[in-house]
């Protein structure tokens, strides 16, 4: 089940050595934890499949399939739904209390580092959903007789990591909207960068339904490069919006540096 690193809420910039806004265990901790958690989750499921997929996963009408895979499917769907709604809810709730609070430059820098950590986690999730599992899916579907949409390779791909893509693209937006109001505050409107990135994750999940319908109706044979797979690619390209997130926050970082310089310049004049 998805375990998300809870992003910090109020001004939490720390003076403790090693826990500052741009220290690995400070502002960058979200990046390290977030990326690691989902890589480890994917590895854990992969290890589980190594012992069970060919034994129990090729006959969808069997009791063992229900025990090992249908149950995993249910756990994933329930777990990701609950965790997502809880996290989004908590972001909105806590975000509303702090969005208008004045914060220091150090704190804003720390939040941008946390934001980059969430973007990095999103990047890792996009890798797992668009490369790690699809490789397996190709290998499974070109060798095994498919008898269900809930194959051992589809279950972690379409029903856990595809939804997690939506969890993190939207969650990262909510964090940006409330914690970085100067960049993504609601008064600016809805950022095109996030629109494209979130659209990528949502349309990918919608494409799953079209994919299964296509497989049941048209070519029952398993060339990977068939035209009705192509929307997965086209929707995936929308995720290029992720680069705009790095750029927009980088621009803000440079502005902060400029503000710091200006403030220092004013102080020097005053001293002089």
């Amino acid at each position, binding site marked *: 089940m998805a375990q998300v690193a809870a992003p910090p809420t109020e001004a939490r910039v720390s003076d403790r050595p090693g826990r500052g806004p741009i220290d690995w265990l400070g502002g960058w901790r979200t990046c390290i934890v977030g990326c690691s958690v989902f890589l480890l989750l994917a590895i854990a499921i992969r290890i589980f499949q190594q012992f069970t997929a060919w034994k129990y996963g090729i006959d969808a009408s069997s009791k063992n399939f229900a025990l090992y895979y249908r149950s995993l499917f249910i756990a994933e769907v329930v777990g990701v739904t609950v965790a997502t709604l809880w996290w989004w809810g908590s972001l909105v709730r806590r975000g509303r209390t702090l969005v208008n609070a004045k914060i220091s430059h150090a704190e804003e820098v720390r939040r941008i580092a946390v934001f980059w950590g969430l973007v990095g986690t999103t990047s890792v999730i996009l890798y797992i959903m*668009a490369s790690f599992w699809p490789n397996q899916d190709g290998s499974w579907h*070109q060798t095994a007789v498919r008898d269900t949409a809930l194959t051992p390779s589809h279950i972690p791909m379409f029903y856990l990591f595809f939804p997690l893509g939506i969890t993190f693209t939207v969650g990262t937006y909510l964090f940006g909207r409330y914690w970085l109001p100067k960049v993504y505050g609601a008064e600016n409107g809805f950022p095109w960068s996030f629109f494209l990135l979130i659209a990528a994750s949502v349309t990918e999940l919608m494409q799953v339904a079209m994919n299964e319908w296509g497989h049941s109706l048209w070519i029952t044979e398993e060339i990977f490069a068939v035209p009705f797979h192509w929307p997965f690619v086209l929707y995936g390209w929308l995720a290029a919006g992720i680069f705009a997130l790095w750029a927009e926050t980088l621009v803000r970082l440079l502005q902060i540096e400029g503000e710091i310089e200006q403030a220092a310049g004013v102080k020097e004049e005053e001293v002089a």
Partner: protein
Amino acid sequence: MATDAKTLELRELVNKQYRYIDRKWDAVFWITAIFVVGAAADITKQLFAGDWDFWTDWKDRQWWPIVTPFAIIIIGSALQYIQWLAWRFPTGMTYTAVGLFLCTFVGRWVQWGAFVYYPMNFVWPATMVAAAIFADWVLLKTKSFILTSVIGAILFSVTWWISNYIPLAPYLQPAHWMDRIVTVADVQGIEYIHSQTPEYLRIVEHGSLRTFLGETQYVSLVFGATVAIAGYWIGQFIGRGLAIWPIGRFIKRW
């Protein structure tokens, strides 16, 4: 010639030290971005040209040199635009190639090898790296995306084919099998069963009355190069329209 103030200002800016922007930002950017870049390149390759990349008996001389360079140049082109525009680094294509290789290597080893037990000499992935070096080198020299799209894409697809024909060569040797002479790759394709992809699904050179003897390869290379140019501009659209254009833009009424 006296250097103007703006040039001096920008020179200083290149080496300026900041309060909060240290090398960790660079490290986080390069390391986290490679996941999404490699994945985007991998899914584009898999779903546009995957079958030709999965199996040695699909790496033919008519289709493989056309579909694969087209598929893999797309994301590399987008990254070329982004990384040149943002950092003036001629690294977009190579960065994508390195990311793609890591994604594909992990995918083949962990899934096709360890999960389904195909021998790796049957399912090894093609490499894009050598081709990418030349495409990035052309961008560095020309500083132009139009010139890179033509010269770079042509060099890219020819280099791609050479750098992958070399490891393919041993599998194109003739072998005695089932009363016939077929290639080692053909034997791999029939012996190592893939139950849901019967052999007739293989889209490889069949020969036709219009195939001029000995010219198939070269016709495919030339056509593959032109298709790669088209792929390059699709990538430019992704870079310009989907990655850069949204920066600082907001939907006001939504």
